C-alpha cells in the first residue's frame, strides 16, 4: 500500500473511479491517486487479460493505461487528476478511444 506521509497535506479532489465516488489530492497524477487508494492494478493486459498496474510512473512503461472521461489508453501517470474526473479501469482494449 502506498500511504501519504502525514506531512504531505494537500486539499482533497473528488473524482469517480469505476462509477464510485473516490478522493485524491491536489498535485496527484491519476496513477498516484489510484495507488493511494490501494488500487494496485488499473487494467487488464491486451494479450492475455492479466492484471497490470503502473510500473515506472514516468510515462515509459504504458502499464498504467486507464479510461479517463471516456477516452481509453490514457497514461494515468502523466495525467494530472482533476476534480470531477471520470476514471475507469481498462479491460484489455487496444482501441485508442471508445
Amino acid at each position: 500500500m502506498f500511504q501519504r506521509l502525514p506531512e504531505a497535506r494537500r486539499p482533497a479532489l473528488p473524482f469517480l473511479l469505476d462509477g464510485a465516488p473516490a478522493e485524491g489530492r491536489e498535485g496527484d497524477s491519476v496513477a498516484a491517486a489510484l495507488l493511494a487508494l490501494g488500487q494496485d492494478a488499473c487494467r487488464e493486459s491486451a494479450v492475455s487479460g492479466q492484471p497490470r498496474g503502473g510500473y515506472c510512473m514516468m510515462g515509459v512503461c504504458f502499464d498504467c493505461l486507464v479510461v479517463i472521461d471516456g477516452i481509453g489508453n490514457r497514461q494515468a501517470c502523466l495525467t494530472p487528476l482533476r476534480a470531477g474526473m471520470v476514471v475507469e479501469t481498462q479491460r484489455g482494449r487496444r482501441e485508442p478511444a471508445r
Partner: protein
Amino acid sequence: MSAPPPGEAAPRDAYDIVVVGAGPAGLSAAAVAAGQGASVLLLDEGMGPGGQIYRGIANPALPDRRILGADYWKGEALLRAFAASGAAYHPCAAVWHLDAARRVGFSREGRAHLVQAGQVVLATGALERPFPVAGWTLPGVLSAGAAQTLLKAQGLAATGRVVLAGCGPLLWLLASQLVAAGRPPALLLDTTPAGNWRHALPHLPGFLASPYARKGLALMARVRRAVPVIGGVTDLAIEGEARAGRVTYRRGGAAPAGLPVDHVLLHQGVTPNLNLAAAAGCALDWEPVQACFQPRTDAWGLTTRPGIWLAGDGAGIAGAEAAAARGSLAGLAAVAALGRIDAATRDRLAAAPRAALARHRRGRAFLDRLYRPAGHFRRAADAALACRCEEVTGATLREAAERLQVPGPNQMKAFLRCGMGPCQGRLCGLTVTETIAAARRLSPAEIGYYNLRSPVKPLTLGELASLPHDEADLRATGGA
C-alpha cells in the same frame, strides 16, 4: 501544479530553440539559451518542471527537507534560473515527432502542434533499465524510481512489507529516503555481482576523490543501520496471482529463500531514454561498460544530425549535476550555431560548466563498473515477460534467437511482435538485443537496436486532425 507556469499561451509557429525535457539538462539549456536572447520553447511530458531527479520541485509535497535529502533541493536553483530566463514552457506536452528539418510535433491536452525549431536540444534523460525477472509485471511490483517519484511528487511512501531488490545508487538512495520518512523497507536484496569489484577497483582512487564517495558511503551506512541487507543475490523472482505476494531469492549455491511481500521495488541502473533521438535519425553507439546504447555526440552534445543537440543522461549516464552542466554547454553551442554569440564568447561562457562536468564525471568509472548488472539479469528469465506489452517470455525470445537465428531485434518483431506494443520497445529493447547477442555469440554493437520511427508517442487521429491544414493539404488527401 499550484504555481501557473510561464508560457501557457498557444505555441508560436517557430522558435530559435526548442528544448525537449525539463530535467536538469533541459532547464539549464533553456535558461542559458534564453539568457543569450534566443526565443526558446521548453516542452516537457511531466506535470511540472524538474524531470525525474527533481520531480515536484516547483510544488514540493514534503516540507520536511530531510526526507529527500540535500541533493534533491539543488533543483530549486536550476528552477529559479529557468523561471527568470523568459523561456516559454509547456508541461504535459508529449513530443512525438522530430525530423532532420527540425520540425517538432507534440500533443497537449488532446491537441497536436507542429513547430519549427532553428536548433533542437534534446534533454530526454534516462529511464530505468528493464529488470525482467519472473513476476515483474505483477501489480505491487514497481521500479524503485517509480516509488521515489511518488514520494517526491505526492508524498506517498510504499508501506507494509516492502522489499527493494537490485543494484545501483538509486536503490540505496530510495532506501535512505524511506528510512528518513519513517517507512524503512523490510529488506534490501543486493544483486551487485561479486566479480564487479575486480573491474571497479582500478578506478577506486578516482571515486574516492569524487563528490560521490563520502556522500554515498555515509548514505549506505545509514541504510544498513535501519534495513537488513542481503548481498550477493543471484536469483530473484516474484510470485503471486492477482498481485505480488512473495519474493524468492538465492545467493549463489545457497538454498532458495523467500518472504511474503506487499511491494517489490526493482532497480538495476538507468540507461539513456533515446527514442526521440533515434527516431530523428541520430546514430547510436553501444556503450560496453554501461551496457546500453547511447546517441553519438561531440563535446558540445551535437548528434550526427545537424542542429540537433543532446544533453544530460539521454546522451550517456553521468548524473544530475553533470546533466545540468551538459545542458549549459548544449545551450551555448546551439545559440552559437544560430550566430547569436561568437565562438570566443561561447568558449568563455563554457569554462564554468566544463569544469563542473569534469568534477562530476570523476568517480563515474568506478560506479559504472561496480554496479554493472549481471548478464543474466539483463536478459529475461525464462518465465519472465521480456516484452511486457506483447507478453513475450524470455524462453520464447531465447528459443527464437537460438533456433531461428533471428539476426536482430527488427526481424524479431516480425516473429514475436516484441517491441510493437504501446511502450515502443522502451521496456524490452535492451533485453531483446542482449538476448539475441548471447544466442548468436556476437556483441550487442553488432546486433543493433530497434529501428525507431515517429510518432514516438501514441497519437490519436483526432489529435492529428487538429493540426492546422490549408487548401493544398486538403486537395492532397482527396478532401473537399
